[in-house]
């Protein structure tokens, strides 16, 4: 727990994180503003409030949240190595594997925080505009957000893994998106690949906790196990760049 608290504190103290949370809030506000403006000024009824909540999540999951997950996990892992601050942690009485977990959990915590912020924000908006939701809709919405949280965990792990391979946050995001496009492309030609592709899993976040197929659930579990094992092994072997001239 100490390492998670430590990583969490560092993450929140960073200026970039504060800017990111602020930007995310602004995007939410703009989206909601457009919705209210369209609803009230022009009498448009494109979405019901619950659909709006799903739609905002879908929009965010389409690009913004995966990008944030990749950015956070890659910089959290590789940033410490490139700035050599990882030495501070490696001198503590703690296993490297726990440092890796601490970093992943802190990033996942922040992603969860962003999702929660969005959930509460949309919920309040819905309550004001629509007067409330039925319990069934609320559970369904919660399932969507929980599914998104789990799927973002996979992107978080993937980002950490790619960052350790490519040693760069920027390159990780670039390669991440190339892989994303590549997997989508192959999925167009191979149904078998499509069934287990990470891109399929990401796009199916909303059905993860509501009528998901066994294949999807097993695929998510398998990805978690594989990515974690490979990631932790890479982290274990990763050395602090020592200056050979000393």
């Amino acid at each position, binding site marked *: 727990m*100490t390492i998670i*608290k*430590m990583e969490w*504190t*560092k993450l929140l*103290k*960073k*200026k970039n994180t504060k800017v990111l949370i602020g930007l995310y809030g602004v995007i939410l506000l703009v989206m909601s503003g457009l919705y209210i403006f369209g609803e009230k000024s022009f009498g448009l009824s494109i979405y019901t409030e619950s659909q709006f909540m799903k739609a905002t999540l879908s929009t965010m999951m389409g690009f913004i949240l995966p990008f944030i997950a990749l950015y956070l996990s890659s910089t959290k892992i590789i940033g410490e190595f490139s*700035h*050599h*601050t990882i*030495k*501070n942690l*490696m*001198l*503590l*009485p*703690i*296993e490297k594997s726990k440092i890796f977990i601490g970093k992943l959990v802190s990033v996942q915590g922040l992603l969860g925080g962003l999702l929660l912020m969005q959930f509460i924000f949309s919920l309040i908006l819905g309550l004001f505009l629509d007067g409330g939701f039925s319990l069934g809709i609320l559970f369904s919405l919660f399932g969507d957000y929980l599914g998104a949280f789990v799927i973002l965990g996979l992107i978080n792990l993937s980002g950490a893994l790619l960052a350790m391979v490519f040693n760069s946050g920027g390159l990780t995001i670039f390669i991440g998106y190339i892989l994303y496009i590549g997997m989508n492309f192959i999925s167009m030609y191979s149904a078998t690949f499509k069934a287990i592709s990470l891109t399929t899993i990401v796009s199916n976040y909303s059905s993860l906790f509501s009528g998901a197929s066994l294949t999807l659930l097993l695929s998510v579990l398998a990805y978690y196990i594989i990515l974690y094992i490979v990631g932790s092994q890479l982290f274990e*072997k990763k*050395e*602090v760049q*020592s*200056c*050979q*001239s*000393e």
Partner: protein
Amino acid sequence: MTILSVKHLTKSYSDTSGIFDLSFDIEENDITLLLGPNGAGKTTAFNSILGLTQSDYETISVNNIGIEDRSVFLDIGAMISKPSFYDYLTGYEHLNLLSSYYNVSKDQVNHMFSLVGLEKAKDNKISTYSSGMKQKLDLARAIIHGPKLLILDEPFNGMDIEAKVEMKKILKEIQNKHHTGMIISSHMVGDVESFANKVIIIYEGRTLFNGSMSEINNSGLTVEEFYLEKLAVYKKKVA
């Protein structure tokens, strides 16, 4: 009592770079000077001992417990070459954060700042610290838990004479209080020879001398002369 035991440590980058078959022991109250020019392998030796880089060795143990057991780091304090800091934190936040693995109170954290003379700067962002102040902060981090073993890699880098004297005083105090064994690397002969009781001279990763300061004193040579003599013998042998 042996605090640190290193046996047959090797980390090779090339024939003349790295560290080759280094063995030594540090006892309680020992202050060992690891002396060698830039590129001799001092940092490589420390990084290998601390597990920051992978190396081959027969034994690296602290208080008879292998370095693979992370609990030994409760007894180790280390200042590594070119220390890095969380620049976006204040000095206090940095030290408080990194001491959270030790049973250290907030009073102790505050005490460390007065001990190293950073009391007034503790609430300033580390990005505003000078290199000497950063060295002091790193020393505070290394000693906050009262370690039994201190590994200090070029601790006087970037320090003016006054700060060096202060730091030596602090190190002496720690030694007296906790019977701490220390190994201090330097490429400058004058830095710690006055209070070191053991000397290891390395060059191109090879150990040229591993003995007591009294051996050097008995030779009738100064540390500087002794060092140059060992170097000349090695170079002649290699040539």
